[in-house]
């Protein structure tokens, strides 16, 4: 081992020399002389390290961090509760129920149409009384669905009215134009075979109560 190799391969902390390094020191007086203060420094740093290892952060730091941990952990628990597995299941179930209820209502409303002879326009004529009935019913009440839900809503046949203090959900759906015609909503006879966008108001029990035509473009 030469001098360069000795100094380039010093062990961590300058302690615990290998046999080869110790042998070099025995042979090389220059390196031995230069090594002496290094050894002393290494020992001094070791003592300093031991002395300083007694130094700890003040206890208030741990107290503060523990409080932060508790609030963080509490937040995580609340957040995990808020995003638990049943949330999306509940949302999808509600949506599916709403769609099913709407389909049932629309199919029931559309059933008389085939019984009547005529063109596509026929359902509109047959549906007119239904709508009138609904309007008449709502006229008979002190406040109609439009006052609660907004303009353009038509109450579905036989569906109970949504009260002013009653909760409801709005679902935007794409339905055949013919189905809207069957409920008395004018979407244009030429669009009877196309799909239109409608808002359906669902009562707190999940049943469809009223419907409103959003557009007749067939897309959201």
């Amino acid at each position, binding site marked *: 081992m030469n001098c360069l190799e000795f*100094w*380039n391969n*010093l062990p*961590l*902390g*300058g302690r615990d020399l290998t046999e080869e390094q110790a042998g070099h020191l025995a042979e090389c007086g220059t390196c031995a*002389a*230069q090594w*002496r*203060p*290094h050894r*002393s*420094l*290494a*020992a*001094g*740093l*070791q*003592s*300093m*390290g031991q*002395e*300083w*290892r007694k*130094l*700890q*952060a*003040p206890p208030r*730091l*741990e107290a*503060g*961090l*523990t409080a*932060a*941990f*508790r609030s*963080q*952990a509490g937040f*995580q*628990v609340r957040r995990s509760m808020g995003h638990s597995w049943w949330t999306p299941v509940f949302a999808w179930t509600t949506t599916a129920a709403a769609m099913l209820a709407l389909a049932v209502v629309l199919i029931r409303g559309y059933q008389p149409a085939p019984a009547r002879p005529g063109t596509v326009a026929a359902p509109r004529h047959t549906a007119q009384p239904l709508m009138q009935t609904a309007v008449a019913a709502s006229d008979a009440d002190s406040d109609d669905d439009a006052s609660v839900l907004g303009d353009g809503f038509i109450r579905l046949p036989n569906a109970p009215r949504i009260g002013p203090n009653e909760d409801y959900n709005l679902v935007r759906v794409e339905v055949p134009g013919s189905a809207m015609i069957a409920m008395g909503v004018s979407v244009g006879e030429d669009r009877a075979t196309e799909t239109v966008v409608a808002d359906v108001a669902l009562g707190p029990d999940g049943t469809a109560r009223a419907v409103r035509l959003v557009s007749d473009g067939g897309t959201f």
Partner: protein
Amino acid sequence: MAHYSSQTDDELLFRLRNGDEQAFAVLYRRRHGAIYRFAMHMSGSPAAAEDITQEVFLALLRQECGYDRERGTLSGYLFGIARKLVLRNLERGRSDVPLETDTDEMAPRELAVIDDPLAGLTRHEAIEGLRRAVQALPRRYREVVVLCDLEELDYAETAVVLGCPIGTVRSRMHRARALLLEKLNQDRKPRLAVDAWKPMRCAI
């Protein structure tokens, strides 16, 4: 608690991520001292060291903390955060007073001291002298001395903390020791700059 103390840092981290307060307490007690001392040595201020230690462990509490066990130990990761905070603190406060400015490329100079710089001093005096000398080192040398010599991290772990090759850690370490010896020798034998004195003409 005894059960927790036998667990690795990674196991404790996993537990604390799941809201286990005891795991956090054990991990904090195991690691905070070294982080606090490192911040203290580097900043020279107990208040800054306290702030930095707090920030390091708050970063650990965050779910999105970037610790990756594939890249190094948790201890190294904590030192890495502490180092970044120290640098920010030093930039803000400009409290870093380098002994001298030089580069890693400079070859280690021949040592001017042959005597034992700590000989004849009491333990307390030696440690105090060393502390001052370490504190006076330029930042890049001070951090390797603190990490390798005082906190006893190995070269590889120190290289990860500093984000540099092991060879750079070795060369900085060598240079740092040379500077420390020089500083200690100067403190021990304060030389009067007699040579710099020049006769002046009396104006009276």
